[in-house]
C-alpha cells in the first residue's frame, strides 16, 4: 500500500514534468507554453507617446493583469481601478523601463504594487497569524499529530468543485498580501522565482521562503476545514 502511495508521490516523471516543474499547474504550464508577445516594438512606440500602442498593450495584457489584481484584492471593482492606474503609469513611465527585466514582469510589478497599495490603505485586513496552520513537529522531528491524513484523493468526493474553489479562495484571502501575491504570481501565473523576485522587489531566496510558507499555510487551512489536523 505504502509502496503504491510512494510511487504516486514520487512517480511524477511524466513527459509534462520533464519540461516543467512538478508543481506547475496546468494553467501555469499553458501560460508558459504560449510564446510571450513581442512587446519591444510596442515599448518603443509607448516611449514616443503613441496612444495606439497603449491600446494595443491594454488588449494584450489587461485580462491577465486584471486577474492578478482581483486575486490580490479579492474584489473586482478595485481591480478595475488598479488596471486603470497600471496602464496609465505604463504609458507615462515607459521611458523609465530600462529592459533589465521582461516588460511583462514590469507590468506585473506595477500591478502588484498598485494592488498592495490599496490593500495597505484598506481597513478590511483579514489575514491571520500563520502559526496555527503550519506543520508542527515532535522533539525527534516526527510530525506532531500522527497519522498525517492524506485527504488529497477524497476532497472531490466530499465537496463540489465550486465549494472547493471557495475554500481555496478563502484560504488565499487569509494570507498576508505579499504572500498572496507570491502565490498568485507563482501558482496561478506560472512565473519563475526569479521573475517573481523582480516583480516584488524581493530576493529569490525570500520568494522561495514565502512561497513555501504560504503553501504550507494554505495546506493547513484546507486540512482544518476538512476536519483534520492542520499540522
Amino acid at each position: 500500500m505504502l509502496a503504491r502511495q510512494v510511487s504516486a508521490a514520487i512517480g511524477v516523471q511524466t513527459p509534462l514534468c520533464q519540461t516543467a516543474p512538478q508543481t506547475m499547474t496546468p494553467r501555469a504550464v499553458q501560460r508558459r507554453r504560449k510564446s510571450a508577445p513581442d512587446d519591444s516594438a510596442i515599448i518603443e512606440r509607448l516611449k514616443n507617446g503613441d496612444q495606439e500602442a497603449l491600446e494595443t498593450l491594454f488588449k494584450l495584457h489587461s485580462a491577465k493583469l486584471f486577474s492578478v489584481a482581483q486575486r490580490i484584492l479579492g474584489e473586482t471593482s478595485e481591480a478595475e481601478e488598479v488596471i486603470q492606474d497600471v496602464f496609465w503609469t505604463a504609458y507615462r513611465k515607459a521611458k523609465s523601463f530600462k529592459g533589465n527585466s521582461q516588460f511583462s514582469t514590469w507590468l506585473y510589478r506595477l500591478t502588484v504594487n498598485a494592488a498592495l497599495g490599496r490593500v495597505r490603505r484598506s481597513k478590511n485586513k483579514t489575514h491571520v497569524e500563520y502559526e496555527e496552520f503550519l506543520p508542527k513537529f515532535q522533539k525527534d522531528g516526527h510530525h506532531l499529530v500522527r497519522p498525517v491524513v492524506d485527504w488529497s484523493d477524497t476532497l472531490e468526493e466530499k465537496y463540489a468543485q465550486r465549494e472547493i474553489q471557495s475554500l481555496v479562495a478563502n484560504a488565499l484571502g487569509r494570507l498576508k498580501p505579499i504572500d498572496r501575491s507570491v502565490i498568485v504570481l507563482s501558482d496561478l501565473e506560472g512565473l519563475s522565482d526569479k521573475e517573481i523576485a523582480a516583480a516584488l522587489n524581493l530576493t529569490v531566496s525570500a520568494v522561495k521562503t514565502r512561497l513555501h510558507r504560504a503553501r504550507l499555510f494554505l495546506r493547513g487551512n484546507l486540512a482544518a476545514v476538512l476536519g483534520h489536523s492542520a499540522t
Partner: protein
Amino acid sequence: MHRAKTVAQRKPIDSCKQMTDLILGYLNNRLKPALRREFEQHLRICPDCVHFLNTYKKTVALAGTLKTSEISEPVRRNVLSFLRQKALAIAALMLSWFFQATS
C-alpha cells in the same frame, strides 16, 4: 569563501521536519541527486511524509485552478475610454506648451 555543504558534511535526513523543509526544492527538481535520493528513501519508510507531500501537491494544484472573473466588456470600455481621454489631455497640453514656446 562560502561553499555549499558537501553530502559528507551535511546531516542526513532523519526527520519529517527536514523533509518538510525540502519539499519546495524537491518539487522544483532543485535538490542535488544525493539529497533527492535520501528524500525519496525517507518517503519509502514514512507514510506520514507521503501523505504530507500528497496534500501539499494537492494544495498547489488547487491554487492553480482558482477561477477569476473575466474583465467584462463595460469595464474594458471604461478603462480604455479613461486612458484615451488622459492621453489626449497630455497631447493637448504638450501642444499648448509647444505653441507658447514658439510664439
